[in-house]
C-alpha cells in the first residue's frame, strides 16, 4: 500500500490522480475513436508501469473481443479473443481487475482457451469494461515493467480508469448503433422516395399517353417549372413541389374524353366546358392526398388562371394567385407553344417569346416571365450549368437565330401596371 503520509506516497497519489484527470480529458476530447482508445490504453499502462497491454471491444453478436489498440507487442499478431457461453457473465461478475493467476474458476476456461493471445500480450491482469451490468470491452495489462507484483493501489487505480474508459467505449458503441440505424432509415427513405417519384412519373405518363401530341408534356412542364423556381432562388421544398406540380398539373385530364383531347378543330361549347373542368377534377383527385411538399392540389387547380383574373376556374388575379401556379401556368403555355398540337404546329422560340411578352401582365406574371427569359439567355450563351429548356426544344439554333432570340430577350417588355 502507498503510505499517503510519506512524500513519495503523496507524489504517487498525485501522479495517479493526474493520470485519471488526463484520461477524462482524452475521453471528452475531439480525437477520433481510435486515438481516444489508444491514448486511454497508454494512460493506463503508463500509470502502473506496464510495457504491454491491449484494449478490446466486445461484439456480443459474434461472441468475441476485437482488438482496438495494443502496445508492446511486436508485429501485428492476431489478437482476437473468443468467448463461450458463460464467459461474458463471468467477466461482468468479476472484480474490477482480475489477476490472471488468481482468476476465479468461472474465468479459467476463457483464459486457457485464449492462452495464445493472452500469452502474446503477456497479460498479467484482465480489466473487464462494463456499463450498467453489460460487458462492453476488456483491457489486458502486461506484467510490471519494473518487476514485482502490482499493488492494491495499482489495481484500484486501474479499476477507476477502466470505469471511465467503459463509459467512453459504450458511448461510442451507442453512437455507432445510432449511426447504423440512421443510415438504414436514410436508405429506406430514399427507396420510398424513388417509389414515390416513379409512381408520380407513371401518373404523368398515363395523362400524356391520352394524346401523342402531349407525350412528355408533363415532364417538360416539370423541368421548366423547376428551372424557373431555382432561378428565382425558391427554397428546395418549393422547387420539389413545383416538380411534382408540373408532373401532375394535368391529372384531371384523365376524366376528359380522349376524342376531345385529340380533336384537331375548334371545340364546341360543351367540349370546352368539359376540357375546362380538368383543373377542378385534378384538384379533387390531389386534395385527397397529403403531399409532403406544398399544396399540389392548389397548383393543379390554378394552372389555367391568368394574372388579370380572366382565367379559370376561379378567376383569381395578380398576387392572390400562388407564385407556384403562376410558374406552372407559364411553363405549361411555353411547352404548348413550342410543341405540335392537334390544332396547330409548334411555333419558334422567338415567336414564343414574343407571344409571352404580349401576354405579360394579362396572362403571365412579369417576374416569372422575366425569369424564364434570363434562363433562356443563360442557356443560349453557354452560362447555364444544367440547361433545362433549350435541349428540350425541337428547333435548330444557328448563330443568326441565337442572335435574334437574344435580341428578343434583351428587348424588355411593358405590361399594364408598369409605367
Amino acid at each position, binding site marked *: 500500500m502507498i503510505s499517503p503520509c510519506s512524500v513519495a506516497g503523496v507524489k*504517487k497519489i498525485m501522479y495517479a490522480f493526474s*493520470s485519471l484527470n488526463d484520461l477524462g480529458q482524452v475521453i471528452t476530447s475531439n480525437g477520433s475513436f481510435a486515438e481516444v482508445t489508444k491514448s486511454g490504453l*497508454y*494512460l*493506463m499502462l503508463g500509470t502502473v508501469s506496464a510495457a504491454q497491454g491491449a484494449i478490446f471491444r466486445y461484439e456480443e453478436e459474434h461472441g468475441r473481443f476485437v482488438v482496438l489498440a495494443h*502496445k508492446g507487442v511486436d508485429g501485428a499478431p492476431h489478437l482476437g479473443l473468443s468467448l463461450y457461453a458463460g464467459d461474458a457473465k463471468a467477466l461482468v461478475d468479476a472484480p474490477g481487475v482480475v489477476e490472471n493467476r488468481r482468476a476465479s474458476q468461472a474465468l479459467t476456461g476463457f483464459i486457457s482457451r485464449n492462452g495464445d493471445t493472452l500469452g502474446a500480450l503477456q497479460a498479467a491482469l484482465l480489466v473487464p469494461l462494463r456499463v450498467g451490468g453489460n460487458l462492453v470491452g476488456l483491457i489486458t495489462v502486461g506484467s510490471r515493467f*519494473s*518487476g514485482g507484483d502490482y499493488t492494491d493501489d495499482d489495481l484500484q487505480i486501474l479499476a477507476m480508469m477502466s470505469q471511465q474508459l467503459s463509459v467512453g467505449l459504450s458511448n461510442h458503441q451507442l453512437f455507432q448503433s445510432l449511426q447504423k440505424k440512421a443510415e438504414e432509415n436514410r436508405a429506406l427513405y430514399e427507396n420510398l422516395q424513388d417509389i414515390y417519384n416513379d409512381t408520380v412519373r407513371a401518373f404523368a405518363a398515363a395523362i400524356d399517353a391520352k394524346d401523342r401530341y402531349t407525350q412528355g408534356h408533363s415532364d417538360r412542364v416539370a423541368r421548366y417549372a423547376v428551372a424557373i423556381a431555382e432561378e428565382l432562388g425558391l427554397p428546395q421544398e418549393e422547387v420539389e413541389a413545383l416538380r411534382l406540380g408540373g408532373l401532375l398539373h394535368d391529372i384531371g385530364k384523365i376524366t376528359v374524353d380522349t376524342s376531345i383531347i385529340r380533336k384537331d378543330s375548334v371545340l364546341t361549347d360543351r367540349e370546352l366546358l368539359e376540357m375546362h373542368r380538368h383543373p377542378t377534377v385534378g384538384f379533387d383527385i390531389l386534395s385527397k392526398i397529403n403531399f409532403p411538399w406544398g399544396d399540389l392540389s392548389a397548383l393543379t387547380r390554378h394552372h389555367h388562371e391568368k394574372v388579370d383574373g380572366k382565367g379559370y376556374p376561379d378567376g383569381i388575379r395578380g398576387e392572390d394567385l400562388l407564385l407556384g401556379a403562376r410558374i406552372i401556368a407559364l411553363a405549361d403555355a411555353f411547352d404548348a407553344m413550342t410543341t405540335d398540337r392537334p390544332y396547330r404546329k409548334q411555333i419558334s422560340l422567338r415567336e414564343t417569346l414574343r407571344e409571352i411578352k404580349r401576354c405579360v401582365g394579362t396572362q403571365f406574371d412579369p417576374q416569372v416571365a422575366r425569369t424564364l427569359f434570363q434562363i433562356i439567355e443563360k442557356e443560349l450563351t453557354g452560362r447555364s450549368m444544367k440547361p433545362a429548356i433549350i435541349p428540350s426544344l425541337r428547333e435548330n439554333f444557328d448563330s443568326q437565330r441565337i442572335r435574334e432570340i437574344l435580341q428578343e430577350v434583351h428587348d424588355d417588355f411593358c405590361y399594364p401596371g408598369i409605367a
Partner: protein
Amino acid sequence: MGQFQMDVKFDRDFVIFYTNGYINDLGGEKIERKCEDILREGYRKVIVNFSESPIINSIGISILIGLIDRVKRAKGSVCFTNLTLNNTEVFEFMGLTQYAPVFPNIEEAVRFTMGHA
C-alpha cells in the same frame, strides 16, 4: 508549447534524441519510431535529452517504457538527461531508472554511455 518535435544527433557510437514539447499525447510516439529506425541502423546506445520537455504524463511514461523495452531487447543501453526534478521522481517511482539512469546533463550522460560496454 506546440506540437511535440524531436531532433536527433548521431555520434559514432551513440545517438542523442533532443525532445521538444510536452510528452503527453500520441505525438510522443515519434520517440519510439525513431528508436526503431536507429536500432535498425545498428546503433545500440541512446541518450534522451528532455531539457525542452518539462511535462511528461503517463502516456509519455508508457512511450518511454516502450523505448527502454526495445533498446533492452536489442541489448543496448538508454539514459536520460536534463529531466525536471518532478519528472526524475516520477521516473524513479515508476521504475524507469532501473533500466535507464538519469543524469543532470548531457556530458555526464555521454561519459556514462561511452564507458558502457
